[in-house]
C-alpha cells in the first residue's frame, strides 16, 4: 500500500494515500466537494473552478526549514486565494476548509457564473433529474438570477456530432470532460473545442463525425444535458426508470451493465429497456461501455422475435403452431431415434446454465457437442487461462501483454482500452499482427508477420532477443490471441503456440498470467469450459445428422452449411429471432433473451457473472436450459430446470473450474475505487453503482496444480498460394451484419456495405479500383463486394470481413472480377 498522509478536512482528521487529490480524499472520507470538470478517471485540469476550497499548509521557517509551532501545534498558513481541490494533492498536515464562508462564496459564484449562460431548460432536458448542474445548483446556487434573461446567449440545440451523439450547445458548460475522455481514455481524439471565450464550443473533426466506438461514454460523464445519445434523448425521465443489473452479451469482455427500464404505453403497457448504462466493475469495464454494447439491445424487442413453438411437417413442410409439449416431444423423439447421429450445435450466445444442460443431453445420448465458432483453442484457455486475482486494470511496469492476430479495437473494444491503459502505465505491450491496428501506437514492440506466419512470431517470445527478453523476464505475462486471418484449425494452432510459450516461461497458474481468447460471442469461454468444441469442417459434421441447434444461424451465415443442413435428417432450432435456419427447421423453439431471465456468462477473462431479468418474457419464449430439460423429459431423462440457480448448483458440483461457486458468491460486491456516483451524482449518470455482483473467476487447470497438457502445434492449414494468387483472409469487424446489431437501427447505419480491402498494387494487378463493385469468389463461395484500397494490407492479400455476407471460414485462394 502506498504511503498514507494525515490531513484535516472540515475539522475531520483523515488519512489518504500520498499523491491523492484533495477532492478524492475528501470523497473517501464522506465529504463531498462539488465538482464539474474533475472526474476521477481523467487527469486534473482545474478549469471549472467549482471545487474551490481554502487550503492551509503548515508554515515552515525559511531559514531552518522546520515547521513553525504555535500553542503546541503547527502554525497553519492559509493562502490568500481559494484553491482548486481537484488539482492540489494531499500533504501531511494540510488543513482544508470546504464549507467556510469564503469557500462557500467561491462555490456559489461558480454556479452563478455557469447559470448566466445556461438555458435552464431542465423540464425538457434528458439529464434533468440526474444532473450534476441541477444538483449543485440546489446545493450551492442562488435562488435569484442577477443575469437579465433576455440577454442570454442562444445557440444551436440539436447539433449531431454523429448519428449516435447529439450536442446541445446552449447546455454545454465547457468542462472538457468529453474531450478529455476521448483524448486520454479512448485514445480517439476526434472531438475538441473550437473558438474561445464565451464562443468556445465542442466540435467533431472526424469523418464520419465522432468516429469512435466509445462515444456513448461521453454522454454519461457530461455533467449536463449537452451530450445525449440519439437512442435515449427525449425517451424518458430518469426518475421513471428502474434499474436492473445485467451483463453485455455482445463480446467476450463481459462488461457489466445496468438496464434502465420503464413501463410504456407505446409498448402495450409492457416494461421496455430505455437505455443500457455501464455498471462499475473496476476489474472488467470500469465505468465504460463500447457503443455496440450500449446500443445493440434493440434486438431483444425486435419484431422478428420468435414467440411460439412451431413444427414443419409433411411433404409440403406445413408450418404448425403447436404447444410446447408437442414441439418438445417431436424433438425428443427424433433425438432418440438419432442414436450416434445426434449433434448439438450451440453458440456462446447461450448462458452457462443452457450450455451445461445441452452438453449433458449430448453426453447422455452419445451425441456430439459442437461450438458454433470460427475460433479454436479454447481447451487451452481452460488449462492455462487467466484466473483468480487477474485484473488488466492494475497491470503496469513489470508486466508484458502480447496481443496476437487480433484487432482488439474492433473485436473487444473494452479490452483495447484496458490494454492501452496498461501500456500507458508502463506495461510492455507486444502487438503481433499482419497489418496495422490501433493498438500499435501504444506498443513497445510491433511484430508484423505474413498471414500464416503467426506461430513463428509467437515462438520469438521464448527465444533470445528483444521480444524474448520482454516476455521471459516479465513478472506477469498475458497473451491475448485472436483469429485475424485464421480459421478454426489455424487459431487452434496459434493457441497451442501461445500456451506453450506461457507454460515454458511459467506464466501460468497465477494471477495476471495466462492465455485469453478473443472469442466471437459473450459466452464462448463458458462453452469451452463445458466441453463444447468447434469443428474444423462443420458442414461435414452436420451432413445427414439429427441436429439440435441453439443460438446459431448456420443457414443464413454460410451456403455450405445450408446445403449440409438440407441433407440433415432432422433439425431442431432454438433461438430468439427468426432467421434462415428457423425457416428450414423441423422444430422451432422460441428462447428468451438474457434480459428476460436469470443466468451467467463466462467472460474471456474467465469471470463468471450473473445477469438478471429486467423485462417481461416475449410471447411464450422459455429459457434455453428449460427447453433442453423439457426435451430431455421426452427422452426419459430428467434434468433440473426449475430455475437457473439450481442448474448452476449442479454445474458447479460437476465441473471443476466452477467448484464452490454459487449465485450468492457471484453477486457479492465490495467497495470499488475510485468512488463514482453515490447519492450526490457529481460524476453524472445514475446507474454506475454495482450492487448486484462483481463476478468470480473460474480456476484454471494450472492453478489447481493439474499437469498442463498442450498438444503439439500443428502447422496451419494455409492454402498453397502462388505469387499470382490472391489470398482471401477473414478479419473481424465490430459492426457487422449480425442479427443483434442489425436490429439496432442506429448501429445499422454504421455497418456499411460489404467491402473487401487490398492494397493499391494488388488492386491494380486484379484490374480493380477503389469503390468498384466486384464479384468475389473463393472456396466455393461467391458474392458481391465493394473494393476498398488499404495500404496496411500486404501484397497479394484481400481482407474479407466476417459477418458481412461473404462466408469466409479460413484463408482461401480467391478471385475478383469486375
Amino acid at each position, binding site marked *: 500500500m502506498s504511503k498514507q498522509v494525515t490531513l484535516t478536512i472540515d475539522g475531520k482528521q483523515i488519512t489518504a494515500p500520498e499523491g491523492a487529490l484533495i477532492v478524492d480524499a475528501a470523497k473517501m472520507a464522506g465529504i463531498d466537494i462539488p465538482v464539474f470538470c474533475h472526474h476521477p478517471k481523467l487527469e486534473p485540469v*482545474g*478549469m471549472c*473552478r467549482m471545487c474551490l476550497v481554502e487550503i492551509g499548509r503548515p508554515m515552515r521557517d525559511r531559514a531552518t526549514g522546520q515547521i513553525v509551532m504555535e500553542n503546541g501545534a503547527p502554525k497553519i498558513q492559509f493562502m490568500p486565494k481559494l484553491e482548486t481541490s481537484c488539482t492540489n494533492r494531499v500533504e501531511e498536515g494540510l488543513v482544508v476548509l470546504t464549507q467556510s464562508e469564503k469557500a462557500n462564496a467561491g462555490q456559489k*459564484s461558480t454556479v452563478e*457564473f455557469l447559470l*448566466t449562460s445556461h438555458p435552464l431548460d431542465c423540464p425538457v432536458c434528458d439529464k434533468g433529474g440526474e444532473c450534476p448542474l441541477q444538483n449543485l445548483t440546489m446545493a450551492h446556487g442562488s435562488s435569484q438570477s442577477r443575469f437579465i434573461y433576455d440577454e442570454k446567449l442562444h445557440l444551436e440545440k440539436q447539433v449531431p456530432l454523429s448519428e449516435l451523439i447529439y450536442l446541445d450547445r446552449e447546455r454545454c458548460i*465547457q468542462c472538457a470532460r468529453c474531450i478529455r475522455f476521448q483524448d486520454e481514455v479512448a485514445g480517439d481524439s476526434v472531438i475538441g473545442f473550437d473558438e*474561445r*471565450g*464565451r464562443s468556445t464550443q465542442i466540435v467533431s473533426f472526424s469523418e464520419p463525425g465522432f468516429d469512435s466506438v466509445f462515444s456513448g461514454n461521453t454522454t454519461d460523464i457530461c455533467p449536463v444535458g449537452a451530450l445525449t445519445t440519439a437512442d435515449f434523448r427525449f425517451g424518458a425521465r430518469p426518475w421513471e426508470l428502474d434499474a436492473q443489473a445485467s451483463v453485455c452479451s455482445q463480446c467476450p469482455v463481459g462488461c457489466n451493465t445496468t438496464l434502465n427500464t420503464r413501463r410504456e404505453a407505446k409498448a402495450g403497457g409492457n416494461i421496455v429497456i430505455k437505455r443500457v448504462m455501464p455498471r462499475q466493475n473496476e476489474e472488467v469495464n470500469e465505468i465504460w461501455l463500447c457503443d455496440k454494447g450500449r446500443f445493440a439491445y434493440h434486438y431483444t424487442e425486435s419484431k422478428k422475435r420468435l414467440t411460439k413453438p412451431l413444427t414443419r411437417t409433411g411433404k409440403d413442410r406445413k408450418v404448425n403452431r403447436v404447444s410446447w409439449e408437442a414441439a418438445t416431444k417431436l424433438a425428443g423423439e427424433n433425438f432418440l431415434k438419432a442414436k450416434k447421429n445426434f449433434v448439438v450445435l450451440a453458440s456462446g450466445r447461450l448462458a452457462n446454465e443452457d450450455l451445461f444442460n445441452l452438453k449433458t443431453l449430448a453426453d447422455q445420448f452419445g451425441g456430439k457437442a459442437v461450438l458454433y465458432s470460427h475460433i479454436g483453442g479454447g481447451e487451452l484457455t481452460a488449462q492455462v487461462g487467466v484466473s483468480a486475482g487477474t485484473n488488466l486494470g492494475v497491470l503496469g511496469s513489470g508486466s508484458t501483454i502480447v496481443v496476437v492476430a487480433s484487432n482488439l479495437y474492433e473485436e473487444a473494444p473494452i479490452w483495447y482500452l484496458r490494454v492501452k491503459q496498461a501500456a500507458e502505465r508502463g506495461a510492455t505491450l507486444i502487438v503481433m499482427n499482419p497489418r496495422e491496428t490501433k493498438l500499435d501506437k501504444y506498443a513497445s514492440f510491433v511484430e508484423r508477420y505474413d498471414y500464416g506466419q503467426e506461430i513463428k512470431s509467437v515462438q520469438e517470445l521464448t527465444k533470445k532477443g528483444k521480444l524474448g527478453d520482454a516476455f521471459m523476464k516479465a513478472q506477469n505475462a498475458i497473451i491475448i490471441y485472436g483469429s485475424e486471418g485464421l480459421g478454426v484449425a489455424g487459431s487452434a494452432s496459434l493457441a497451442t503456440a501461445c500456451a506453450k510459450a506461457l507454460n515454458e516461461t511459467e506464466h501460468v497458474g497465477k494471477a495476471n498470467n495466462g492465455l485469453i481468447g478473443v472469442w466471437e460471442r459473450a459466452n464462448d469461454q463458458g462453452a469451452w469450459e463445458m466441453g463444447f468444441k468447434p469443428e474444423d469442417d462443420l458442414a461435414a459434421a452436420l451432413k445427414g445428422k439429427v441436429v439440435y441447434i441453439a443460438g446459431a444461424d448456420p443457414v443464413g451465415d454460410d451456403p455450405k452449411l445450408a446445403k449440409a443442413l438440407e441433407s440433415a435428417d432432422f433439425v431442431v432450432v432454438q433461438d430468439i429471432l427468426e432467421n434462415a435456419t428457423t425457416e428450414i427447421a423441423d422444430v422451432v423453439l422460441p428462447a428468451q433473451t438474457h434480459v428476460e431471465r436469470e443466468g451467467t456468462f463466462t467472460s474471456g477473462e474467465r469471470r463468471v457473472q450473473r445477469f438478471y431479468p429486467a423485462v417481461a418474457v416475449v410471447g411464450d419464449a422459455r429459457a434455453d436450459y428449460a427447453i433442453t430439460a423439457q426435451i430431455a423429459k421426452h427422452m426419459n431423462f430428467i434434468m433440473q430446470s426449475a430455475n437457473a440457480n439450481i442448474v448452476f448448483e449442479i454445474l458447479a458440483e460437476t465441473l471443476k473450474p466452477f467448484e464452490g461457486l454459487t449465485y450468492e458468491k457471484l453477486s457479492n460486491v465490495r467497495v470499488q475505487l475510485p468512488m463514482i456516483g453515490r447519492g450526490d451524482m457529481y460524476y453524472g449518470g445514475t446507474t454506475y453503482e454495482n450492487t448486484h455482483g462483481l463476478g468470480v473467476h473460474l480456476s484454471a487447470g494450472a492453478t489447481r496444480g493439474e499437469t498442463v497438457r498442450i498438444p503439439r502445434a500443428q502447422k496451419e492449414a494455409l492454402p498453397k498460394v502462388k505469387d499470382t494468387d490472391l489470398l482471401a483472409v477473414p478479419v473481424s469487424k465490430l459492426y457487422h451484419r449480425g442479427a443483434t446489431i442489425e436490429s439496432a437501427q442506429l448501429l445499422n447505419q454504421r455497418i456499411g456495405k460489404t467491402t473487401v480491402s487490398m492494397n493499391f498494387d494488388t488492386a491494380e494487378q486484379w484490374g480493380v479500383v477503389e469503390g468498384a463493385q466486384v464479384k468475389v469468389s473463393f472456396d466455393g463461395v461467391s458474392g458481391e463486394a465493394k473494393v476498398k484500397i488499404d495500404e496496411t494490407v500486404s501484397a497479394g492479400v484481400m481482407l474479407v470481413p466476417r459477418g458481412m455476407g461473404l462466408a469466409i471460414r479460413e484463408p482461401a485462394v480467391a478471385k475478383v472480377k469486375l
Partner: protein
Amino acid sequence: MAHVVLRHRDIPNLNQFDVYKKNGGFSAFKNAVKKMQPTEVTDVVKNSGLRGRGGAGFPTGMKWSFIDNKNWPHYVVANADESEPGTFKDREIMESNPFQFLEGLALCSYAVAANVAYIYLRGEFWQLAAFLDEKIAEMEEAGLLGNKILGTDYSLKIYTHLGAGAYICGEETALLESLEGKRGQPRVRPPFPPTFGLYGKPTIINNVETFANVPMILANGADWYKSMGTADSSGVKVFSLSGRVRRPGNYELPFGATFRELIYGEKNGAGVQDARQVKALMPAGASSSLIVVNGDDKILDTPMDYASVRTLGSELGSASVIVIDDTVSIDWVINKTIHFFKHESCGKCTPCREGTYWMQNIVHRIHGGDGKQGDVDLLLNVAKQMQGKCLCALGDFSAMAVVTGIERFKGDFDKVVKV
C-alpha cells in the same frame, strides 16, 4: 545618460551585425561560453537584481536557478507575444537592437544548458520574425550560434515561432501549449515551467526586454546594474507611454524615476495634450488598477518602481503607462478594457469566460446610457466575484480596471446612469 536597452537611440544602425559587434556586442556571450561556468552566469544575473519585464517582475536570476537539472533537455523561450494594450517596447527592441536581445537569449540558454531556444512572437509580428531569422542566420554564420559555438562544446539553435492572434498566448503556460501546437490555453500552475515547461521539460521563459538587459549586465557587472534604479527595482526600464500625452512612445528611464518625469519630461512625454490635467493613470496597460491623480502632485511625484506603485493601490506590471486626462470618463475606459478582455478570454475557466461576457453586457447598458445605479453595483460585484477565482491572471486583470474604476471614480458612473 546613455541607454542600456534602447542603445540604438545612441548608436545608429545598431541592428547591423558589424555595428553591434564593433560596439562591444557578443563579448559577454563569448566570454561566458569560453571562460564562465553556466551557474556563474546565473549568479551574476541574480546579483544584478534584474527582475522580469513581462509584468510580474519575478527575479530573473532566481528563476534561472530553479531549472530542474534532473530532467533533460532544457529549453529557453523568449516571450515576444507583446499583446498588452499600451505595450510596444519589445517590438522596438527587436527591430532596432535585435542582437542585444538575441545575445541575452543565448546567454540564458548557456546559463541553463539549453541547446534549443524559441522566440514566440505575436502573429502580427511576421515581418519581424523574418527579420530575426536573418539576424539569427548572421550569428550562425559568425559561429555565435549553431554547433560547437566558438570551438567550445556548447551548441545552440534559436527558432522563431508565430502565434495566431491571442492575447492569452502571452501568458507563459498558454504560450507553451501554443508552441507545442495545441490550443493556447493556460495550464494549472504549479508545476511551473522551470520544472515542467515545453513538452513537459524544464523551461525558462522571459520577456524580450528581460533578455535585452542581460548582455549589458554580464559586460559591465552586477554592481554597475544595481547602481541604477532603486533597491527594490534595480536597473532601467523601458516605459511605453501612451494615452493623452503629447509625445507617446518608449522611454528608457531608471526605476525610481517619477511619473512626472515620464509624462512631462521634455524628452519624454512632453506633457498632456491640450495642457489638460492628468485624471488617472494605468501603469500596466489594460490590466491596470486605475491610479487616481486628479492633478495631485504627490501622486505624479511617486517613483516608478514595483514597491512604490503598489503603495498607490496598483502594480507597475509591464510599465505601459496610459495617461487619462480630465476629458475622459472612466465608464468609457472600462467599456474598452472589458471589451478587450471579453474578446481575449480563452474560455477555459468559468469565472473569466462567463464573467467577462456578463460584464460586457452590463457595461454596454451603462455606457450606452441605459444603465441604472443597480447596474453599476452589479458590475462592481461581478468583477469582485471574479477576483481570485480564475485559472490564470487574465481573469483577474479583467476585473482590475472595473473594480478600481467604479470604486475610485464613482462620480463618472453616477453621471451616466438613469436615476
